Structures are given as structure tokens and as C-alpha cells.
């Protein structure tokens, strides 16, 4: 029995409840930091326990699928909680893909908490309690081995984020929070219908069972509905092109920590959902209906997102909004790699999820630090910050370079791999690769354009009246802020120069995810009432 995975959820949940009851704000922030660091340590413990050398090729074919959905950290938890009436069980597990994402999440959370120490000035207790609750729900999505549990956690991330944006956000916060909630919820209720349908049809919500069922048990019309329902929820969360409009607003209005978590982790839930549900179910892929067309449509949407996001980012006046639009662009790469459906593309896609979380999260952190000092993010009001804030400028340029994919830093590896995936993919090909590559060039243009304006050039900062009652921050980054950024910088360099361990560890799971299991390998078909009803319909 491995308790670490249960602890991973239990620690932040208990932490959030205790944090909400603490007497004062000062203890609340240190408590939140303590809990998030503790969660990170649990994450590290999981890494230590994880069986990295497990040879999946030795696994019998029939078990493979179950293995691809989860590896390790096993059972024992299957019976942790079980809801007989609907075959829901509280079962948890990770494979190396989700483990890396868990690691990224537990790394981002303490730094966001630490970065909020001076940024969040009112109702601090609530803020940190919501952050810890959010942490628990996000981790829940990554470790769920039950489809309903996955959905529940996926949906629950909305509530803390709604309050975080709505209470502690910028001037448009109420509108932004409402839009964020309604967009995401509207998408994901369709996913709920699909989740219930799959659970009903498969007779269980167990992810492995459902996936296995979905691969061979669905009629063609059901496959279309299931795909559309899943895509609706995930595409809004990612977000893909036509439904991305909530993102820039939510990212811009959210407080720094909210933006970091939103960009770093919440967007990944959508891509992760596609990877974990749609691809293994064979809905995207050679066994899917209208196979190349669906994938091509998705890829085109990604490309539009890449180019359009980049072009819109280019003209932004607000540097936070610029980075927000860059997320639209970057997530386009991420999903493009995913739908390339080959080793390069999918490895790159998973790596992109991690890298984007690190570098964009870090960008939002730095921008938050600038904002705390100058109370503006307007590209016209800021200039030449390098003269005043050399340390900050170092980090800013560093993370910018990571974000645009400078060789040696993390962004390069994943961008390269996703584009390579698009080039070599059997069904995408050169056109898609070239279009995506144009996106990279545009990315470099808008990011460097901003850096040139904000960091270099003659010094220009707006005059700020310090609020009474608060100690003014030091001119350049202080020790706490450097502590926030250094872990991310280290991770960026490590993943840039040494991505091989990560890539190697996710190679097998990625292959498992997209290999359909031949129907004859599976057991006899299970006839459920739903199937009978479906079959009887004209």
C-alpha cells in the first residue's frame, strides 16, 4: 500500500480547512506555505516510490490498457470508497505522465503562495484557503483513476478559481470571474453527460474499464456524441481557438498567484483530459470516426490558435494580457503535438504542458512583481527597467527566452518536438509543421518586442503614491521574491539541458495511450441496458 497518493490529496484538503479557521492572516500565509511545501514533499516521496523501471512491454496485452491508464500506486485504494448505486469508486493512481504534471503542480503552488505574501492584502485567510483547496482539486484530476472522480475534480477547480479571480482580481474581476466560470462550466456539462453515459454503458466509472469499453463497445453515432461531449469540456479548458475568449480576461484580471495557477495548471487539465480520455478511447486516432478529418480539424484549430494568439499578443498594451495571449498560442502547440499522434508529438506535448507551466507561470510571477512596485502593466508607461531592477530584469529576460524556445532552455525541447511531431505525423504533414513554425517566429517577435520596450531603453516608470500602512517594497527584487523565482529557473535549465529522463519515462505511457487494443483481445462484450436501448432505437 502506498499512502503517499492519498496524502497528496489529504494534506491540502486538511490544510485548506485548518487554514480557513486560523486566527489571523499572518499565520494563514505561513500555514499555506507550510502545507504547500508539505504537499510538494509528498510529491517528491511519490517520485521516490514510483517504479520508474517498470517494463510495460512485458505486461500481457489484455492488461496493457489498464496499465496505460494507470501504472503503479496501485490498488488497495480501489475499495477506499465505493458508491454501489452508480459504480463509483474513489481510486487513485498515476503513471509517469501524470506524475510529472503532479510534480509541476506541487512546485508551482508554494511559489505562488510565497509570491502572494505582499500582493494579497485583504481577506488573506480566505485566499490561502481557496488556494489550498484548488491545489487538492487539481491534484485530484491528475491522480484520478475513476472517470467520475476525474470529472468531479475537474469541475471543482472552478469554484476556488472563481473566488480567487472574483475577489482578489483587478478592476474587471467580477466580469472576468463570471465569464471564466460560465465558459468552462458550459463546456464541461456536456462532458458530464458523456461521463455519465460512458459510466452507464461500461457499467463502471473505472477509467481503465471505461476506456476499454469505449474502444470497442460504442456504436458509431455514440462515438460522435462522446467525442463532441469530451471535446466541448476540454477545448474550453485548453482553450482551443473559437472558445478561448475567457482566457485573456481571466488571466489578466486574476491576482498573480491566480494567473500562475490558471496558466500553469488549469489549462493543462484540458490537454491532459484529451490525452487521458479522448486519445486512449480511440476517438482521436486511427480508430476514431472520420479519422483524419477530426484530427485535421483539431490541428487547424490549434494552428489558428497559435498564429492568432501570437498576432493578438503582439499588439497588446498590457504585458500581462500579452502573456495571456501567448498562452493561447502556446497551448495550440501543445494540442498540435498531441494530435500528431506519434512519439515525438505526444512526448513533446506532455513536455510542453510542464514547460509552459514553468515558464509562463514564472512570467506571470515577474509581471506581478513589477506591478506590485509600479502599479501598472502598461507597455507605454514602463521602460528601461533593467537600470532600476537588474535582478528582476535578469529573470524576466531569462523566462522570456525560455518561453520563446531558446536552445538550452526548456521551451526549445518541447517546441521542437511538437513541430517535429507535426512534420512527421502520417496525417498532418509539412503544411502544419510550417504553419506552427511561423508561430514560433511570431512568438519570438512579440516577446522580444515587449522585452525591448519594458526592460531596455531609457528608464521610465510611473510615479506611484505608496499606500499608507504598507511597507514599501525594495526597489529591486527582495530575498523572498528571488526565492520564488530560483526554483523555477533551475527547473527551466534542467529541463532544457537534460530533458531525456523525462522524455524517456513518458515514452512508454504515451505509446500505450494511443495504441488501441484489438477487440478480439478483450473479453466478451458486456450488454448493459443502455446498449440494449441504443440497439433498439431505429
Amino acid at each position, binding site marked *: 500500500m502506498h499512502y503517499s497518493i492519498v496524502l497528496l490529496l489529504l494534506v491540502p484538503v486538511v490544510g485548506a480547512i485548518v487554514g480557513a479557521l486560523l486566527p489571523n492572516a499572518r499565520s494563514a500565509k505561513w500555514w499555506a506555505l507550510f502545507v504547500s511545501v508539505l504537499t510538494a514533499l509528498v510529491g517528491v516521496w511519490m517520485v521516490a516510490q514510483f517504479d520508474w523501471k517498470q517494463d510495460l512491454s512485458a505486461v500481457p496485452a489484455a492488461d496493457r490498457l489498464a496499465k496505460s491508464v494507470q501504472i503503479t500506486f496501485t490498488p488497495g485504494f480501489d475499495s477506499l*470508497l*465505493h*458508491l*454501489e*448505486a*452508480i459504480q463509483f469508486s*474513489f481510486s487513485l493512481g498515476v503513471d509517469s505522465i501524470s506524475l510529472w504534471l503532479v510534480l509541476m503542480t506541487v512546485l508551482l503552488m508554494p511559489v505562488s503562495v510565497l509570491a502572494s505574501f505582499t500582493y494579497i492584502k485583504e*481577506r488573506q485567510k480566505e485566499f490561502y484557503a481557496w488556494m489550498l483547496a484548488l491545489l487538492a482539486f487539481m491534484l485530484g484530476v491528475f491522480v484520478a483513476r475513476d472517470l467520475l472522480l476525474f*470529472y*468531479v475534480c475537474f*469541475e*471543482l477547480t*472552478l*469554484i476556488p478559481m*472563481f*473566488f480567487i479571480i*472574483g*475577489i482578489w482580481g483587478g478592476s474587471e*474581476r*467580477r466580469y472576468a*470571474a*463570471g465569464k471564466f*466560470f*460560465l465558459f468552462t*462550466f*458550459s463546456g464541461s*456539462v*456536456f462532458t*458530464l*453527460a458523456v461521463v*455519465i*453515459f460512458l*459510466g*452507464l454503458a461500461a457499467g463502471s466509472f473505472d477509467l481503465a474499464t471505461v476506456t476499454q469499453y469505449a474502444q470497442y463497445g460504442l456504436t458509431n453515432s455514440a462515438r460522435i*456524441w462522446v467525442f463532441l461531449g469530451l471535446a466541448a469540456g476540454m477545448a474550453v479548458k485548453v482553450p482551443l481557438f473559437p472558445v478561448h475568449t475567457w482566457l485573456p480576461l481571466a488571466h489578466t484580471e486574476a491576482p498573480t498567484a491566480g494567473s500562475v495557477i490558471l496558466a500553469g495548471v488549469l489549462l493543462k487539465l484540458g490537454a491532459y483530459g484529451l490525452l487521458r480520455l479522448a486519445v486512449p478511447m480511440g476517438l482521436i486516432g486511427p480508430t476514431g470516426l472520420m479519422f483524419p478529418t477530426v484530427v485535421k480539424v483539431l490541428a487547424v484549430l490549434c494552428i489558428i490558435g497559435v498564429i492568432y494568439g501570437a498576432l493578438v499578443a503582439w499588439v497588446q498594451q498590457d504585458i500581462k494580457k500579452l502573456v495571456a495571449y501567448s498562452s493561447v498560442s502556446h497551448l495550440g502547440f501543445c494540442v498540435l503535438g498531441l494530435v500528431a499522434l506519434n512519439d515525438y508529438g505526444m512526448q513533446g506535448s506532455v513536455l510542453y504542458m510542464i514547460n509552459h507551466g514553468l515558464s509562463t507561470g514564472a512570467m506571470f510571477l515577474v509581471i506581478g512583481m513589477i506591478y506590485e512596485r509600479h502599479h501598472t502593466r502598461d507597455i507605454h508607461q514602463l521602460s528601461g527597467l533593467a537600470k532600476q531592477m537588474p535582478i528582476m530584469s535578469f529573470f524576466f529576460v531569462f523566462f522570456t527566452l525560455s518561453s520563446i524556445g531558446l536552445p538550452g532552455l526548456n521551451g526549445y525541447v518541447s517546441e521542437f518536438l511538437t513541430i517535429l511531431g507535426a512534420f512527421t505525423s502520417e496525417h498532418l504533414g509539412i503544411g502544419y509543421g510550417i504553419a506552427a513554425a511561423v508561430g514560433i517566429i511570431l512568438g519570438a517577435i512579440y516577446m522580444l518586442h515587449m522585452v525591448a520596450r519594458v526592460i531596455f531603453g531609457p528608464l521610465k516608470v510611473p510615479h506611484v503614491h505608496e499606500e499608507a500602512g504598507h511597507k514599501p517594497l525594495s526597489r529591486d527584487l527582495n530575498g523572498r521574491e528571488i526565492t520564488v523565482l530560483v526554483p523555477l529557473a533551475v527547473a527551466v535549465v534542467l529541463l532544457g539541458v537534460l530533458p531525456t529522463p523525462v522524455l524517456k519515462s513518458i515514452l512508454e505511457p504515451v505509446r500505450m495511450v494511443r495504441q488501441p487494443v484489438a477487440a478480439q483481445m478483450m473479453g466478451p462484450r458486456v450488454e448493459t*441496458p*443502455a446498449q*440494449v*436501448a*441504443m440497439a*433498439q*432505437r431505429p
Partner: protein
Amino acid sequence: MDSLVRLLWPEMVLTVAACVLFLLGVSRRAAVRRLTAVLAVLTLAGVFVGLLASGAGGALMSGQAVSDPWHSVRIVEFGYYIKILVAGVGILLALLAWPGNRQATGNSAMDVGQDTGEFFGLMLLSLMGVFLVASSNDMILMFLGIELASIPTYIMVAISRPLAVAQEAGVKYFFLGAMAAALMLFGFSYLYGTTGLTDLHRISQVFAASAGGVGNAPVLSAWQVLAVVMLMMGFAFKMAVVPLHFYAGDVYQGAATPVTALLSFVPKISGFVAMIKILYVVGGGSWVVPEFVTQILIVLSVLTMSVGNVLGLLQFNIKRVFAYSSIAHSGYMLVGLAALTSSRMAGSDEGLSAVLFYLAGYGIMNVAAFGVLMLLPAQPGIAGMGGVGAGGKMPPATSAETFEDIAGQGRKHVALGLAMAVACFSLIGLPLTVGFFGKLYLIRAALNQGLIALVVITVINAAVSAAYYLRIVSSMFLRSEPQTQWPQAAKPADECECKGTFPIRLAVGLSVFGVLLFGLVVPAIEMLSTQSRAAARVDIPTSVEPSTASALAR
């Protein structure tokens, strides 16, 4: 006679208690009048516990129908479930209407000097009406039960506030209710005319005989079709189902908040119980009903959900929002009934158990939402009260009604804000609340019958409804309190609001606890869904009922 007492003791206890309350209500001594609320709650609690205990005793929960010699009453687990549910939610509703603090309840009938005894007597009678509907096996008794559930509510609406809007609401509700009663009677009379029977069980056997085989839908004559349609429309009024929903907005707004809470639960459940019983009759003792009934249910459910949610988006008064939300929730529950009747497989009563689960969940979360509204003060000078008070005087301070009233209150009263958030998230159907499992069971039942289009419409509606529930939450938490100047005459309710509101707080606390318990604690969810599944097994094979043969012989 003995068997009748054994069967109908809850109804009898409630009637006797109501009469006692009417008598106590005319007492001159304030202490006695004050006692009426305590008595009402104790009676309901006694009935609740008694029903639970007798259910646990097992005699009546064995899956067998129990009838009295005249077959006017026939009790199955379904009836027990409904009674326990109504008694339980009734306790919460009585607590909401507690006559402690008129400012907090916004209900002048609650002022101890006035009509307290009558108010609680009427409330018990209304709940008793639902009990009768649940027990009835005779169309006359069923009609009486439905009317008994409704008529006291007309009075309660009218006396709840000394304002023109309340009287207007009462009159409106009464006239439209009378029209619905006429529709219903029309339907019942045709049903009687074509079968010559009032015994619902025997009518179902007549229908079953017309089906020509198990699993076939009965063949209805044109008059019978007319009767069924009329009945469904009559019940639609009670359930606040489109197209007979027009009264909801005005009546809910005009009534005092605790009465509104009652209105959104008691008449609704009486309508649903009657509808379920009639569907069972029309199916000839099964759920295999003629095609047109299912189609009507589907159309009604789509219309009700969509109209309710879209109109809910446009409201400024929160009580109106909840009125339209109540309409929309009826629509969701009709999805369950549509799933129930479109089943062609015997014993597939998943839709019904989903509806029963949802009724329980809706009752609980609704009390929480209204309770929080009652505990928040209204802003002065905002036309929540419909303007001028009675006699040209300043309208009494009352509970929150508009979005302005609740703006920023979640920051000031964190516990109340969180309670409202839990209630709203549950009404949306977010996980960890009972509303999530309610929707899950309904969608599951509909999908199981292949009603995919209906499910798609349901989830679209869930998304639409999120907009207005979220508006409530965001008003409470994300807006700041409006800076209004309190006139000297009306003091802000802040000072007095903790006094005498303990019962309301208790009701809110209990219902929030219930929402989370049935949404979070797996054994509790399991328990409720098992109960509702057991209760959904209405179709007992006729052979196990000992008295059927003799009944037919007569």
C-alpha cells in the same frame, strides 16, 4: 377501523394538531400563541420520527401494498418515502417561518400578536394534503388531497405580509389554482365517466385489460386521452410546469419569504406525486404508458427547463429568480418522468428513483437558499416590497429580495454567504453537493432510455442556470455593499438580526448540512439513493395484494 388508524395515523395526527393550533391561535395570551410554533415543529418531528420508526419496523416497508377495506387508501413504500420526505422538509419549513423576529422573517403573520396559530395550522393542513395524495388510491381522495395541499397556501400567501402585493399574489394564486382544480376535476370526471370507477387501482386494471398483453401500452379512447391530458395540465399547475407556470413569478415575489419556500416545495411535490400515480394508472399498473403521454412529458420538460432558466436570467428580484429556478427544476424532474415512461422494459424504474432523489435534494437546498435570504436585511428604499406599504405607513423592514440587498453580504456574514454559495452550487449541480447526484441520476436515467436529445437540452439548461445562480453568489461575495443612507425611522437590521433568528439559522444549518451530507458522504448518498430506489418500486405484482380478488369480486 383499526386498520384505517394504522394506515392514516400521520394524517390524523397532523389534522388534530392543526385544529389544536387553530384553537390556540385565538388565545389572548401571547405565551400560548407563541407555543403554536413549538407545537407545529414538535408535531412534524413526531410524525417524522414515527414514520421512520414504523418504516424501520418493516411491516409496511415490506414491499406489499396495504389497503383499507374500502380501497380508498393504498400505501406502498412510495407513499412512505414521500411522507418521510415531506415531514422532514416540513420541519425545516416550519423553522423558517418561526415567529421570532418579524424583521428577519419579513412575515407579518409571524408577528406573535397576529395570526401565528392559523399560520402554522394551515401549514400542517397543507402538508397533510400531500400525505393524503401519497396514500390515496381513489381519485376523489386524491383530488381532495391536492386541494388540501393548495388551499391553505392561498391563505398563507395573502396573510403573510400586510402589503398589497401579498394580497394580490394570494388572489392571483387562488384564481389560477381554481382554474387548475377545474381542469383536474374535468379530467377526473372523464376518467370516471369512461370507466365507471374511482378506485385508481381498479382503473389501472381496466386499462391493463385494454393493453392486450404485458409490456404493451393500454389503448385509450379519445375521452380517456382527453382526461389524461386534462389531469396532466392540472398537475402541471401544481408543479409550476410551463405552460401553467405564469403565477410563479408574481406569487413567489409577493409572498413572504418563508411562504415562498413552502410554495416552491409543497404544492410541487403534491403535483409530482399525483402525476406519478396517474402515470402508473395510465400505464395499466406499469410504466408502459401510451406514446402520447411520454411525448407530452418530453415536450413539457423541455419547455419548462428552457423557459424557466431563460426567464430566470432576466430577473432582478431574487425571489423571482428562485421562482423561475423552481420552474426549471420541475423541468429537470420531468426528464426523470419522461425516462420512466419511455422505458419499455419491465421493472426499469430508474427514472422514478431519480425523481424521488431529486425531490429530496431540491427540498433541502431550496430551504437553505430561502433561509439565507431571510437572514439578510433588505436595503431601504429599494422597491423589493412593491412600493407603498399598507395604510401609507413605512413598510416593515423585511428580508433581502433584490440583488442590491445581498450585495457584499457574503463578506459581512461569511457563514451565511457560504451557506448561500453551497445552496447555489447545489442548485447548479456542482460536485460535492446533493444537486450533483440529483442531476447525475436524472441524466443517467434519461441516457439509459436513449433520450440523448433530452439530455443535451438538460445540460445546456444546467449551463444557462449557472449564470443566474452564479450571479447570486457573485453579488454576495464579489460586490461591495452599497453605501445607502439608512433613514432614521428604519434602523438597519444589524442590531436585531441575531435575536430570535435561531430557528432560521438552525434550518439553514440543517439544510446546508443535508446538502453536503448527501453530496459528499458516500454512505449517506448510498442510503438516500437506495431509499429512493426502494420507493420507486410501485409496481407490486397484483398477486401479492390479498384484497385485490375480493375487490374485483365486489
